[in-house]
């Protein structure tokens, strides 16, 4: 048993891919994926991708880091075990800044790395597109546009025809093994 995952179309230049993505989206397609050997300027915009919320993850984690570090230093130094060192106050803001800064940076970095992995779904060992033997050229010299069969305006014969009219070098259906 296998079912249709979608179609892949190969293009030979980033410009052709971006142009095709624009035209396909103008036809109302929404479930698209573009795969390229290197980052292509303008592709995110053509695909209509929203900006990643990753920056907010980092900001929130940094806030937690600041609060946790200040609380830790104040509670240990001034509440739980007050000890006069070098005639300094039990707790003061200035000498607490380095630890506060470091913990904010540490937690923000964790949030960025793990948040990135959570958002992009990596590491991922299998993707239906791997069923297409030629797809591996997307990491070499081909710019690939995949249209999923679950797209509301997908049509098993008209969509490949559309992609061919847009200048695709090859258009192939991709079957997903059940």
């Amino acid at each position: 048993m296998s079912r249709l995952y979608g179609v892949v179309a190969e293009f030979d230049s980033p410009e052709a891919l971006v142009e095709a993505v624009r035209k396909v989206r103008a036809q109302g397609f929404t479930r698209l994926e573009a795969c390229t050997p290197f980052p292509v300027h303008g592709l995110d915009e053509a695909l209509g991708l929203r900006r990643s919320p990753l920056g907010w993850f980092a900001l929130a984690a940094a806030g937690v880091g600041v609060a946790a570090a200040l609380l830790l230093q104040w509670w240990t130094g001034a509440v739980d075990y007050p000890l006069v060192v070098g005639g300094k106050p039990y707790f003061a803001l200035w000498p607490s800044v380095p630890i506060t800064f470091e913990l904010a940076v540490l937690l923000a970095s964790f949030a960025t790395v793990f948040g990135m992995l959570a958002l992009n779904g990596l590491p991922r060992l299998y993707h239906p597109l791997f069923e297409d033997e030629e797809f591996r050229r997307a990491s070499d010299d081909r710019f690939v546009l995949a249209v999923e069969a679950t797209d509301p305006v997908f049509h098993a014969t008209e969509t490949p025809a559309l992609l061919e009219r847009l200048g695709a070098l090859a258009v192939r259906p991709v079957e997903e093994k059940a």
Partner: protein
Amino acid sequence: MPTTTSVPQPQAAFSYRLEESLWRRGRNVLWIIALAAWAACLFGWATDRYNFLGSYLVHFMFFLTIGWGAMFFVMVQHLTSATWSITLRRLMETIMITVAPVTLLFLPVALGLDVLYKWAAPGFFDPHNPDLAFKRAFFNPPFFLIRAVVYLFVWGVLAFVLYRISVTQDEGNHQESISDARTWSAPGLLVLTITVTMAGVDWVMSLDPFWYSTIFGVYVFSGGALAFIALLILVALALRAAGALGDVITVEHYHDLGKWLFALTVWWAYIAFSQYMLIWYANLPEETAFFHHRAEGSWRYLSLLLVVGHFLLPFLVLLSRAAKRNLTVLGLTAAWILVMHGMDLHWLILPSVHPHGFHLHWLDVATFAGVGSLFGLVFWYRLRSHPMVPVGDLRLAASIAHQNQ
């Protein structure tokens, strides 16, 4: 947002020069300001030399530190082979070459040495105190002036050579000028950082002859680098408003300048904080005197203003991507940072001149206009003598097409 299909290109027909009538108007305004301000400065020098020199040093350092920032930045761009900044390079160099008049503008400081610097009085450092032997050997008028001549010479040569290399590129020896610029930039950067650190210690830190901070030179420099980016943003925005640059500086370049403004704001704060925290923690009387003085009376408000205005406010504003890409927000932040750089130098220098508190003096206005108009005139004349974009650099088209992902 421009996309791959509509990339702005350098236009052959576009001269990248200011309209002659606009240029003349600017020149006339600058000359009028210069003449009026220097008349006021001369009057100040004759009647109130002490206050004059204090205000003069603040504003001399204000423009000089910006020139340092420009030199530093031009060399860093050469050494990193940065492409994004090439379309901005000639504007950077035009700000950099304003360091040329510094030799002349240092004269009032040199002539007023004994008024401004307490250590210039003979016998200031107790000749019998062996702990002060180094200070005696280092801070005395002849050695101070020799050092100053060396700094001024080094900066003059660096600015002149880097500028020269860049403008000869306009005539078509692309590759040669790139390698020349790199050859000068690597040792140049080293020499610049050493002379800048020493000049900061000599000209500003020694106003408080017994106080010392090993990070002080970096502190003055970091403020200058930040103020330079702020000024560059304002200059580019002004030329954009005048329609003189076509579309060679896009929102992508402003976004990158905004990132630099943000990064250098943090750098300045990092250095300022490092200096403060170490002195706070060590709590040694000869070190804390500097901050103690600045925590008293109205100096206290200026200190707080710097924490909030020089760091916190620009930091929070520039954190967001949207703010860096919004030219109004970016321009206002840049202008604000320039004001804060001036306040920072007031805070460094003037407590030694007016120990009892912060106040603005009419000579602050006169010296700012005096020094600023001369820097401005050099900038203005240089701006006309060459295209405002390095048209001979083959990477220019790639630079203009630069995009942030």
